[in-house]
């Protein structure tokens, strides 16, 4: 692969350190992956494509136009996985109506009160639940949706148990934010010894620098960051039978 999305953020010394230290080797994907789509919901995408500084007036966590650019790629991956009988697992958030369970999420954002329906800012005119998964990639009956409270898809969820039930041994990861829930989930996948392929075009973040450098870190240490064509070729090569939900 030629230039990577993170190259323009790295110093010459950084590049030399990675090369000399032997980082970013090709780990290779697993034999029986599941597709994991992390938090691609209205709170992170907004209800229409808008420049991010405008989008965050309505949904404070929106990633703006980058989210909407990722949606068709995620759709393509989902369709391909359905065609191949590969499990598709979504995560999204959950919150009590009174917001009590947001816990540590309230510590670092001065706008976390907006996450409950009562706290919607004036710019938000719909009553859409931010945790609804985007219509463009809506789950099908055989897909699996996991609700979570914290960044990692593994933390206090049945994800490991579901992967065992499915017979899956690895993950293909997309979603948002690259620096938040994607990274937290990829790290836990690594710690659990699941091989992970991250699809670059299917991930997005609010911060351009964070998106690039987090992909760089994950590619160096924990996973293979690939582009759509390579991901589609990998999925095409999977010929396995899973214990899928009947739907």
């Amino acid at each position, binding site marked *: 692969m030629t230039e990577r999305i993170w190259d323009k953020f790295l110093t010459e010394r950084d590049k030399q350190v990675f090369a000399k230290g032997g980082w970013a080797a090709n780990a290779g994907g697993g034999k029986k992956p599941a597709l994991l789509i992390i938090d691609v919901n209205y709170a992170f995408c907004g209800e229409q494509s808008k420049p991010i500084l405008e989008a965050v007036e309505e949904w404070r966590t929106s990633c703006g136009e980058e989210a909407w650019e990722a949606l068709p790629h995620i759709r393509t991956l989902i369709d391909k996985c359905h065609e191949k009988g590969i499990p598709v697992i979504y995560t999204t958030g959950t919150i009590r109506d009174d917001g009590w369970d947001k816990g540590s999420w309230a510590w670092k954002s001065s706008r976390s009160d907006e996450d409950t329906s009562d706290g919607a800012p004036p710019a938000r005119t719909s009553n859409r639940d931010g945790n609804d998964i985007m219509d463009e990639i809506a789950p099908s009956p055989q897909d699996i949706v996991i609700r979570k409270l914290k960044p990692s898809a593994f933390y206090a969820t*049945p994800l*490991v148990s*579901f*992967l*065992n*039930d499915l*017979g899956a041994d690895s993950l293909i990861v997309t979603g948002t934010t690259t620096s938040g829930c994607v990274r937290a989930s990829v790290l836990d996948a690594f*710690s*659990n010894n699941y091989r992970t392929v991250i699809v670059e075009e299917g991930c997005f973040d609010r911060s351009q620098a964070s998106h690039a450098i987090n992909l760089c870190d994950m590619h160096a240490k924990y996973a293979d960051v690939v582009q759509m064509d390579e991901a589609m070729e990998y999925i095409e090569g999977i010929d396995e039978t899973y214990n899928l939900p009947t739907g």
Partner: protein
Amino acid sequence: MASKAEFENHCWADIMKPEDLETYAPYARETGIGDNPALLVIDLYNLVYKGGRKYPHELEKDFPNSCGIYADDAIAPTQQLIAGCRAAGVPIFYITTQFNPHRVASTRRTNIKMVAEDCEIHDAFAPHPEDTVFREERPSAFFGTPLIAHLNERRIDSLIVCGESTSGCVRASVLEAHMYGKHVSVVEECCFDRCEITHKVNLFDMHHKYADVMHLDEVLSSVSLMKAA
């Protein structure tokens, strides 16, 4: 593997009331081991064998935490189980207690006086270099250890479990394995506790809810068939 008709043919048969067995009748099923199992050997450390073939209440003063005669009875069957699994190429994981004078204990008893040697695995079951040994401070072999990561990496779909205590670390580990979606087979003759009725009732509970409690001969023949396949 054991047939559905043999489902209640276990050590609890003499203590369960007929009406309770009737309540649990719908759980009856064929039992067996998984496709790609590992053996999990739980807490067979020196402390539980101290004082030899006496009942635990006779040892309580000098060797608190010894399982005495119950531990001793399980030595030979457990050696057979380990040898059978080893011969069939089944990966073997040991879990033992992490000695630490300030440890977070796995039970709430108050009169334990442990030394480091107490927490070493008994010579009768000495791990081989190719085995994996983890140390724990809490009842479940999964809690605070990388056990699930090892099982995932080696595509191990199931566990064969032996060790002690049936009501403590065995049950905690079996429950967590079940929650992770792993099939579990518990070997009756290779598990023990300080209290016989606790041992039996915990095996009964696990057998009906979380695991297949199997006899040693069934497990050994299943494991040897696996090798042939």
